[in-house]
């Protein structure tokens, strides 16, 4: 999200980009507020089952893509080629291209963050704390992105996707099973066990995918 806004702002101009990003954040805030209020009315065990199952399915998408991307590209950052760059806007009024690009970037990418924030907050019965954490993370990422523009493109996105996928799958498994009334051995400590299992799974599957992609000898 930060990369899209920074990229569009740097190439098309900042005013329309920031208006688009601001409109996107407004839509996200409404989505979080509406979903948060609706979820607060549901019993906690049913909520954990539904949210956990959604988180698990959603997290497995990222887990799978993360394994494939890390296996294929290693820890390469986000590549921005000259051909991808838009031409700077010099006309009057709002640059709708920059607005739409920034708005779509914030809403679509931010929706995933909003989904995670609402899911975690509702399942733990701590929606306020989760929302504060989510907004705090956005501010930190935004400030860091502006301060370190060139470094942002070097962030290994594939690895980030894999790590977030593993975390979502871990919490999704834990909450969905707990929502069914099944007790985990060691209670909340089972989260660490699940995390270790999925980390090991990621390492094994990444190695298998690399072997499949490059043959038995990667140096060949």
């Amino acid at each position, binding site marked *: 999200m930060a990369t899209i806004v920074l990229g569009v702002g740097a190439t098309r101009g900042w005013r329309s980009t920031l208006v688009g990003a601001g409109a996107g954040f407004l839509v996200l805030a409404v989505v979080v507020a509406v979903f948060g209020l609706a979820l607060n009315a549901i019993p906690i065990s049913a909520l954990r089952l539904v949210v956990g199952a959604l988180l698990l399915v959603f997290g497995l998408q990222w887990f799978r893509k993360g394994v494939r991307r890390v296996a294929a590209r290693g820890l390469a950052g986000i590549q921005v080629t000259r051909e991808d760059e838009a031409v700077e806007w010099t006309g009057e009024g709002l640059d709708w291209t920059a607005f739409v690009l920034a708005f779509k970037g914030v809403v679509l990418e931010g929706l995933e963050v909003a989904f995670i924030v609402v899911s975690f907050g509702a399942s733990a019965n701590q929606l306020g704390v989760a929302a504060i954490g989510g907004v705090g993370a956005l501010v930190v990422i935004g400030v860091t992105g502006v301060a370190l523009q060139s470094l942002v493109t070097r962030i290994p996105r594939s690895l980030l996707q894999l790590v977030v996928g593993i975390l979502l*799958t871990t919490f999704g498994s834990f909450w969905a099973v707990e929502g069914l009334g099944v007790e*985990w051995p060691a209670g909340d400590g089972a989260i660490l066990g699940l995390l270790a299992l999925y980390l090991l799974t990621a390492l094994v*599957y990444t190695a298998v995918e690399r072997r499949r992609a490059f043959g038995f000898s990667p140096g060949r």
Partner: protein
Amino acid sequence: MGRLLSWPVAFGRFWYRFIVGDDWTVAAAVAVGLAGTAVLAARGVQAWWLVPVIVVAVLGVSLRRA
């Protein structure tokens, strides 16, 4: 009329792609795992292990097919 119907279809398609993604078998396997856990729990078996086992297995199968 066609346009009226196309909006909910597009809305549903967006959420399907957002949550389920390009491999529906992963979501189906999760559903089967949770249903199995519920059935075993109703019979007094604390089958906490079933979902993690299915997750690891379905991930391997899905990666293999990709």
